[in-house]
């Protein structure tokens, strides 16, 4: 039965997404989304397993692998995606082409999270990129188009690098299955080169510094809900890939006791945290602020990855339960919070008819739910208690502590403070009455935007906070 479910995870959204071309769009979208949420939730109850597709065992055939990481990531996609879909459903300004593309993204994410084959991973990445780029381009106007094109180009370059790595791996080991590759892995030059090339490819997709340049524009210019799913979910595909590469596929290479490549990741993550935070702090408009925040948060996740890699070099257990659970938890916290923030930010911008922060004051004050949503999102992103982000940060700090990695520990703390700094910029405006030095700019009349949109944002942010209460269940579920 679970094989049906696994197949449905990919096939269901894909088919309904395709059907949007021939059916009234919402009729196709509704079952697609509902099914996606349903299967994505159901997946949590299945036992970890491998499925050889078509009965062809690796190395000949493709296989799917459902393990803890993919299970939770799929569920995360389902929930964040489902709630974002709710927003999209109510968002009247959204072109109907959104639905087909979005279901494609969903299916691609699920396929990507399931696959255990490096080449298939490439194919799913491409499907994801194509759909995601098109989503960005849904916004009319040259800025969005330019952003979308840039996104496409970086994404393609990344794919090519990844494929180059796949080619090198195949040339070296003659297999494409991840598990088999891991077992065959040798610590030689070509393998290292393959890892390096593939890492860079995925970094480009995940907007890791210094390959982040496309993200702020793409995420800021996109439609609100698109920004949310891109920031919350799509870039996670690349990060997930990095996790798989560094801690699973190439584990024999990276977890050698004298391995020392991890600090490059840590360094990049650190720079991302500061650069993203700095930019978010000085950017004049709301959505770019949130987008730059994503750059910084990606930095946190990469830093966490680097620490995990380091942890595997210290003891031979490999990717332990604690490690991946913590990381996925961080990812989930960011996804929920960022989706909530983007949706709230988009709603406020829509209400104000304006993007600059300076012009948003009144709209912010008329959108208490959205402000609240943003506040909760900031709380979770910055790792203030009691939120998912907090538990995530607790885990990260504990990890850093165990590794005695003081520098990185300080970095992650400073990162949190930076998050608060730019989050404060927004919330402050929501509380300002603007007497005196900083008058709120006179407003165009506010647009009417239904409150339920704010509510959806709030639900997502609230989940990123209240999710903390599920921490024990999450950590103990597998233990």
């Amino acid at each position, binding site marked *: 039965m679970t094989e049906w479910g696994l197949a449905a995870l990919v096939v269901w959204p894909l088919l309904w997404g395709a059907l949007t071309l021939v059916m009234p769009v919402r009729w196709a979208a509704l079952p697609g989304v509902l099914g996606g949420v349903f299967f994505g939730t159901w997946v949590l109850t299945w036992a970890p397993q491998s499925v050889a597709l078509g009965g062809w065992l690796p190395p000949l055939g493709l296989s799917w692998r459902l393990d803890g990481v993919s299970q939770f990531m799929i569920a995360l996609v389902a929930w964040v995606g489902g709630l974002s879909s709710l927003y999209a459903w109510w968002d009247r300004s959204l072109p109907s082409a959104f639905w087909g593309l979005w279901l494609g993204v969903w299916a691609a994410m699920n396929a990507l999270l399931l696959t255990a084959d490096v080449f298939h991973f490439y194919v799913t990445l*491409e499907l994801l990129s194509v759909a995601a780029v098109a989503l960005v*381009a849904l916004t009319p106007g040259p800025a969005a*188009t*330019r952003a979308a*094109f840039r996104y496409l*180009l970086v994404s*393609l370059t990344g794919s*090519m690098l990844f494929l180059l790595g796949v*080619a090198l791996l*195949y040339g070296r080991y003659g297999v494409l299955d991840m598990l088999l590759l891991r077992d065959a892995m040798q610590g030689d030059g070509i393998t290292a080169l393959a890892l390096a090339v593939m890492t860079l490819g995925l970094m480009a997709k995940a907007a890791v510094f210094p390959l982040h340049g496309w993200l702020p524009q793409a995420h800021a210019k996109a439609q609100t809900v698109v920004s949310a799913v891109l920031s919350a979910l799509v870039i996670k595909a690349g990060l997930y890939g990095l996790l798989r590469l560094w801690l699973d596929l190439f584990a024999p290479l990276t977890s050698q006791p004298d391995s020392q490549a991890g600090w490059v990741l840590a360094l990049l993550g650190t720079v991302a945290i500061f650069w993203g935070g700095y930019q978010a702090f000085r950017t004049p408009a709301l959505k770019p602020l949130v987008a730059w925040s994503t750059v910084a948060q990606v930095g946190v996740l990469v830093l966490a990855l680097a620490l995990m890699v380091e942890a595997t070099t210290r003891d031979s257990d490999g990717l332990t339960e604690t490690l991946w659970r913590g990381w996925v938890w961080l990812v989930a916290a960011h996804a929920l919070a960022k989706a909530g923030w983007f949706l709230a930010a988009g709603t406020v911008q829509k209400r104000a008819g304006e993007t600059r922060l300076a012009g948003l004051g009144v709209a912010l004050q008329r959108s208490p739910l959205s402000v609240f949503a943003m506040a909760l999102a900031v709380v979770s992103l910055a790792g203030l208690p009691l939120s998912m982000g907090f538990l995530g940060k607790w885990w990260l700090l504990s990890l850093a502590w165990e590794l005695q990695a003081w520098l990185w520990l300080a970095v992650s703390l400073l990162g949190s403070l930076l998050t608060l700094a730019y989050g404060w910029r927004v919330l402050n405006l929501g509380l300002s009455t603007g007497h005196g030095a900083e008058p709120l700019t006179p407003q165009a009349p506010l647009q009417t935007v239904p409150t339920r949109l704010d509510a959806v944002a709030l639900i997502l942010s609230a989940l990123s906070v209240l999710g903390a209460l599920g921490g024990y269940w999450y950590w103990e579920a597998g233990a």
Partner: protein
Amino acid sequence: MNEVVYLYGALGVVLIGFYGLARAGHVLQQLLAVNVMGAGVFMLLLALATRHTPADAVPQALVLTGIVVAISTLALGLALIRRLAVEARQAEKRSDQEALHD
């Protein structure tokens, strides 16, 4: 032995793709450069396949898949470039009109 030529040639094409991306002075050329890079990678796969006799079918299948993916992305990229051009024209027209009004 022939595959060695192609192998190194393929890498050369990849490198040229890199160069193209960095140097390109136009979005279209960038897109072309990525595709050049892609052709290089495909060639690499195929060249690796020939180390086995008869040639390994799996890389060939991968390349076939890759070609379709590449044409899809190329089509998308070109569509975006076209829209950029249209929007640039519109913007120009708008600014012309504004200039007339002023």
